[in-house]
Structure formats: structure tokens, C-alpha cells
């Protein structure tokens, strides 16, 4: 069985973000980098599947500068067999369509039975790359999975819908799935696996070798959220507070109408 998991390296969300000079993305200084949270679920699920079926080869793919190799090593330490690095110092300027075209170009002649991605990235949050890859490869995609099982070429899964509702879905491989919070608990890599990961194959391919398709979207401007009106803190004893709150709800909202 051939498996692919696509991951992205993103800044830690606690980092101090600054808009870059071009005004179209964030400044990269003083950021701590880590694996996109949803991609961690994808890697974990892929590794679990590999362990389940026994005979499987799991490739982890990541697009970005040499910096992303650190994050790929974590995926290798979690249990991926080999790394495919698409070397691109300007990946942050590429839209989901271009990114998907790179992954599809890499995967098209490799006969992956199953491709795992995160539901979305924590920094751009488009949620499009996975489904676009599936479309380009002409395979079905199951998105926002919170449960996953595989047997004899069939995937049975649960998708998270709005309002806590879940949908049971099923398809046969080859297919692509995107992973959501709640699917699993990503493992903490063991030391022998961290050591082994350092020696695993990790091949870089220049981005232009994969014939990137032109972007359909362009980021015009990135800006911090505008400051809106501050919060209101009510003080006093509980009975007074309740009266004040009711008054505010009546005056400023339709909650009690």
C-alpha cells in the first residue's frame, strides 16, 4: 500500500506576528515554527493505517524553504518512511491552486492508494488544497474527518458537520482524506524513532521541476484585525449585576425582544 501525507510548516499561533514589508504576508523574524495542527492528525492517521496494514510505504510531502525540513523530520520520527521536499522559498506567495498543482504533479504517476492532508492550514486557512489535489488527480475526497477506518480498499469515515452533527461517509481507494481535530491524538515520537528519522530518505525537488500552475488568487493585503469597541466590565453585587445586564440586553440587543 502506498500512502502520502501532505504537511505544512506554520508559525506557532502564540508567536508575535508582524505584517511584512510588502504588506501581503507576515514577517518571518521571531516566529517559532511547527507542524500545522491538522496535519499532525493526518500524519498520525497515516501512521496508524500503515501499522494496521503492515505492508505500506508512507511518504511525507512538504513545500517550502529548507526550514521546513525540521518539521518533516518530526513526521518521519512519528513513523513516515520517506520525505519529499518541494523546495520553494516563495511558497507563501502561492495560492491553494498552485500548491495543489505541485502536489498533484508529484503524486500523479506514483499510484498512491491514499493521500492524507490536514483540513486546513493554521496560517492561511483556505481549506482548499486537499480537495483541489483530489480533483486534479481525479480521485474522491472525504473532508473534515473525525473518525476513520480502513478495510479491504474501503474507507469508512465520519465527517464533522455544523452544529455537532456528523455524517457517515464511505468510498473506495484511491482517495484523499482531510483530517479534523478529534480524529486522533498525535503520538509523541520515541527517541529511537527520532534517531532513525535523521537517517531516512529526504529528497528535495526544486519547485520549478513540478511545473507550478499559475495562481488564481492574489493576496492584496494582510492586516491585523481592527480594534473594535472595548469590553464592558460590570461591578457590584450579583443582584445589581443581573439588573444591569438585563438593561443592557434590552437596550442594545434583541435577545429579550
Amino acid at each position: 500500500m502506498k500512502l502520502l501525507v501532505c504537511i505544512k510548516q506554520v508559525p506557532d499561533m502564540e508567536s508575535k506576528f508582524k505584517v511584512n514589508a510588502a504588506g501581503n504576508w507576515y514577517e518571518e523574524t521571531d516566529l517559532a515554527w511547527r507542524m500545522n495542527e491538522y496535519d499532525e492528525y493526518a500524519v498520525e492517521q497515516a501512521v496508524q493505517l500503515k501499522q494496521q496494514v503492515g505492508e505500506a510505504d508512507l511518504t511525507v510531502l512538504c513545500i517550502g524553504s529548507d526550514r521546513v525540513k525540521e518539521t518533516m523530520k518530526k513526521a518521519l520520527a512519528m513513523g513516515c518512511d520517506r520525505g519529499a521536499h518541494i523546495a520553494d522559498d516563495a511558497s507563501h506567495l502561492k495560492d491553494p491552486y498552485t500548491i495543489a498543482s505541485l502536489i498533484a504533479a508529484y503524486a500523479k504517476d506514483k499510484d498512491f492508494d491514499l493521500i492524507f492532508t490536514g483540513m486546513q492550514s493554521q496560517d492561511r486557512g483556505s481549506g482548499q488544497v486537499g480537495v483541489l489535489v483530489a480533483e486534479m488527480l481525479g480521485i474522491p475526497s472525504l473532508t473534515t474527518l473525525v473518525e476513520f477506518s480502513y478495510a479491504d480498499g474501503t474507507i469508512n469515515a465520519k465527517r464533522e458537520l455544523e452544529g455537532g452533527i456528523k455524517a457517515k461517509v464511505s468510498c473506495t481507494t484511491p482517495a484523499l482524506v482531510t483530517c479534523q481535530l478529534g480524529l486522533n491524538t498525535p503520538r509523541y515520537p520515541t527517541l529511537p524513532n527520532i534517531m532513525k528519522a535523521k537517517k531516512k530518505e529526504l529528497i528535495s525537488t526544486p519547485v520549478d521541476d513540478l511545473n507550478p500552475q499559475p495562481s488564481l488568487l492574489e493576496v492584496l493585503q494582510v492586516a491585523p484585525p481592527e480594534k473594535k469597541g472595548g469590553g464592558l466590565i460590570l461591578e457590584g453585587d450579583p443582584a445589581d449585576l443581573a439588573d444591569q445586564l438585563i438593561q443592557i440586553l434590552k437596550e442594545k440587543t434583541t435577545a429579550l425582544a
Partner: protein
Amino acid sequence: MEYTREIYWNVGHGAITLIPMYLLSLTAIGVLVYAFLQRSKIYKQGQTLNRTDQLPLRITTMIKNVLLQSKVLNVRGPGAAHALFFWGFFILFLGTCLIFLQADFTDLFFGIKFLKGSFYLFFSLILDIAGLIAIIMLIGLLIRRYIVRPAGLENKKDDFIMHGLLLLILISGFLIEGARIAVTEIGTPLAAWSPVGLWVAKALYGMGEPAVRVLHSNLWWLHLFMVVIFIAIIPFTKLRHIFTTSANYLLTDLGPKGRVPTLDMEDEEAESFGAAQITDMSWKDIFDADACTSCKRCQDRCPAWATDKPLSPMKLVQQLGDVASQNPTANLAETITKDVLWACTTCRACQEICPADIEHVNKIIDMRRNLVLMEGEFPGEEVTTAMENTEVNGNPFGLAFASRGDWAAGLPVVTLEENRDVDVLYFVGCYASFDKRNQTIAKAFIQLCDAAGVKVGILGKEEKCCGEPMRKMGNEYLYQMQASDNIEQFKNYGVTQIVTTCPHCFNTLNKDYRDLGLDLNVTHYTEFLANLLQQGQLKIQSQPFDCTYHDSCYLGRYNDIYQAPRTLLQAAGATLTEMAKSGAESFCCSAGGGRILADENIGTRISEKRAQMAADTGAPTLISNCPFCLTMFEDGIKGAELDGQLQSKDLAEILVERLA
């Protein structure tokens, strides 16, 4: 007339006595040696470890601890009873050796007798007193064990055999002496030099000489027989501690105190890390179990045990011994259970009090290492998250590494990146950097240094967690990553003097980092400020206040710093009411051993128990010197509903309010 006595009186000094006596004695010694040799195979299952370096120091340590009973006497009451019993019994043993020496060696071959004259009188008197003391102490210990029954003291078959046999040996010894005196010494001045023997003799006198002689010879053989049994069963019962505990003093860890062995992460040959099975531990770890006397002093002081958690340091050590002797392939974490392993706060109370010099803490860390490094397991998801946070941002909170130095804005402190020309590097640590409550301590420390004219630098965003909580949780790999990054910074900036406000950072930088190539002065702020105070650089106004002081584990037990904080408190005008558990007996706040990262889900809360102890002194303020302690006490005071009655403060806060 020359004072002496006939040795082998009434039983004879011929072959009919000596041959069976020597055969029995040699058999007993043979059994003893053979059984210990057999037992040593159990120890040899462990990994190699050199514990015979610095032999002169080791030997003097052993002699001191055995003969002076120094560690045993750390607990009064039973400790004194044991020590007095030991001294009594030891003198009787020496006395017996002298008799043997004269009767069957110097007199036999050279005709030399030394048990005579005034030396014999003192010999008689001292042995009599020694025997009496031994009996009284043994009876006292028997009463404690079987009538008083202190909580946690386990009575096993071994204990019954030991106490019973020793008592019978001592009593029969006096009866034999009494019988001899009844026949040979009553009415002579000699008798007065054996007061206990004389008292027994008077009781036996009425039986008449023939009956006394029969009693004497029967008891003599019975006494001999019991001594032979005593020697032979030493390796099979807790009596083995006579040898194993003494040996453990010789084989002790010579420090530095609390040092954890550094794992070689680059070792390509290593297939496993930490202890999964007993064979992964050192031979000394197995030997420790045999040195244990079940005195339960460790268990009595264990904060986990005291709050209904399943960890007893004593039982853990004994379980390891059972595994080594009965089931050496057993998985240790499963046998001991993970809850037990995760419960330890590495407070070192067990090890500090252990009269047998057993090393509990590193065993636990060794087993944790296996769980973490080989299985990727932690006590809870919150700990895994803290580990991942540390990997990414260099602090367990997961806050932006770039904001690590933000607390220092506007204070008289520079980052070394700005200016490396400073007197000391303040290694701030994660809590004082990021935790709001603890930032006040960092700020106070900077103000105190500024007032004393000390130029302080920090690493700011170039500092990372020292790695201590991770290391004690078993994550040696993450610890070494953090440590090597920090050491690189220290070296980059040519740092020569580091001060910390956190005792965990202090202990780690000062001891653990040495294995990784760091060798410079590291001081905890209490000692640093006490020194400035003494030199007159720091001036503190005395303003009277009442408080109690909590000795943090890593400043107290790990580094024996008890006085410096108290000196500072005194200068500040404190009226200090000590808690019952203070100094080396201090009770952990619950946050050591990486437990600061973990939820406390089993039993009651250690921090609340400690807060209650502080409140019981009646003092309104609980002073500590550690960010973990402060954090725990803030919670513990709320949890124990002591708000308004007790407040938790760091020593630096008290001092900064009193800057002259």
C-alpha cells in the same frame, strides 16, 4: 589473687567441646558466605557502575555511619534505641572475639592470657552493661513494633525471628554468666564487676551447685546453637542489613547531591533508553533493595504517600528487589505501575532520611525515561502538550519565545545581545519570564541588584527553559536540546557568573549542565543577595513582620542552602515561626519532578497540605524562594480555604519592599 576466670568453665576445653563448637561455627560462617555469594548473582544482573573509586573516603564514610550510627540517629526514639542496641551488641561481639582470641589462640599457642587483672574487671563490667543496654533497647523496640505499632511499620516473619532470636541470645548469655558466677564467684570481690550476672546468680544460687552446673552446660550449648543459627540466617532474613546496609555506606553516591546520570544521546549502539527491566538498572539499584530495612522513614516523609497517592519509596525499592530475585524479565513500569512512577516529585525527602543510603529518586527517573523515550508516554495529555510547547517555544506554556524578555521592559537590565559587559547573567527561567505572579519576583530581583550596584544582563528571547521539569519527567532528549542551546548562548557571550531565582534552574545549571560541558559559577539569588548584604553592598531596612519559611526541595535538600534565606529574613525584620517540617525535613510543594506540568488527579493536594502546615504556625505569611513553590502555594491557599488567613510571598518581594 589475680582477677580472671576460667574460660570454657564447666563445659570443658577438650576436643569434645571444641570440635562440635568449631564445626557448628564454621558451618554457619560457610552458609553465610555461600548464601551471600549466591545472592551476589542477583546483583550482577544489573549494569556496571563504578562505586569503588575514592576508597579512603568511602571507607571512612562507612566506618562513621556504622560505628557512630549517624544516619540511624537522624530520627530520635527508634534511632537511638537501634544505635544503643547496636553499640551494646557490638561490644558483646568484640568481647566474644577477645575470649576466642585468648582461649584458642594466644593462650593455646603462646601461653599468653590478657583477660586478667584490672583489664578483666573492666572487661566484665563493660560487657555486662552492654548486654543490659542491648536487652533494654531490644525490649523497647519490641514494644514499639508489636504493641505501639506505628502506622506503616510492617511486621513480617523476619522481624519476629530477628527480635526473638536476639532476645533469647542475650537472655541466655546472662543466664550462663549467672550460673557460672553462682558457682565460682559469689562471695568474691570479682562478682561485683558483673552486676547483671550477679543478680542472676543470686536467683540461681538456691538451686544448688549440681543443678546449676547442669543448667549452665545446657544453656551454654543452647546459646551457642542460637548464635550459630543467627549467623547462618543473616543472608536469608532482614538480618542481612548488618552487611548490606554497611556495604551501602561504602558504595554510596559521592555526589554531587542529586546528580542524575546523563544519557548518551549519540550512542548509535543503544537500542533502549531508561529502565524497562531490572537488567537495565545498575547492580547498585538491585543491591539497594537488600540494604533496605523497611524502617519506612522514606514513606513517612513522602509527600505523595502523605496525600493518598500510590507511591511509597520503600515499597518501590523492595518491589525492584523482588523483581530482581524472582522475576527478572518483568516489565518494571507494569509491575510498579505508572501511577506510582508519575507520582514522585523528586523532593528527595526519602533519600535524605534513608539510614541505608538508598537512592530512590534516580530509579524512578530511570523508569520514567523508558516510558517517555521508548513509549512516548506521559502522565497526561497536558504534559505531552507542555513538552511540545517547549520544543517549539522553549517554555512549557507555549508562549511566544520572542516575548520571553518582555517583562524586563523599562527595568535597569540589558540583554547580552545589547551589551555583554555585565556583572552577572540572570537566568530568569520560564515562570519568572512568563507567569504574571512570578514576574514580580524577577522585577524585584532586578531592583535589588540595581540598588546594590550590580549590573545585570539577561538572555531575553535567547534564553530557553533549563529543561529541568522535562528531564525529571524522563524526557532526557528534550532536556539535552534545551541545555545545549542555553550552553551555546552562555559560551557565545563569555558568561562567567549566573544567578537564578529558581532553585530548579540553579540545580540544573550548576550540576546537570556540567556533564554537558558547562563549568561556571551558578548561584541562587538567596545566596547571592545574602553575600551582597554581608559585604554591605545591599542595604535592607528591618521592618518587623511575622512569617513562616518554606525550604524548597532544590535549595534545601538538594543543595543544603538553609541559612542564606533565613539570614535575609532576619535582616528584613522577620519573626520566623518554623513549621514542624522545615529544613531537611521540609515537605514538598508538589511541583518538583516535572509535576509542575501535570495535573494532580490522585489523592488529595500536596500544596493544600503544605499550606495548612504553614497556617498552623499562626503566621500570616508563607515565604518561599522558588517559582514552583509560589505557584503551588497560591493554589494551595485557595484550595485549603486559607485566603485572608495566609498569603504566599517570595523572599525577593519581602526584600524589595525594604530597600534602604
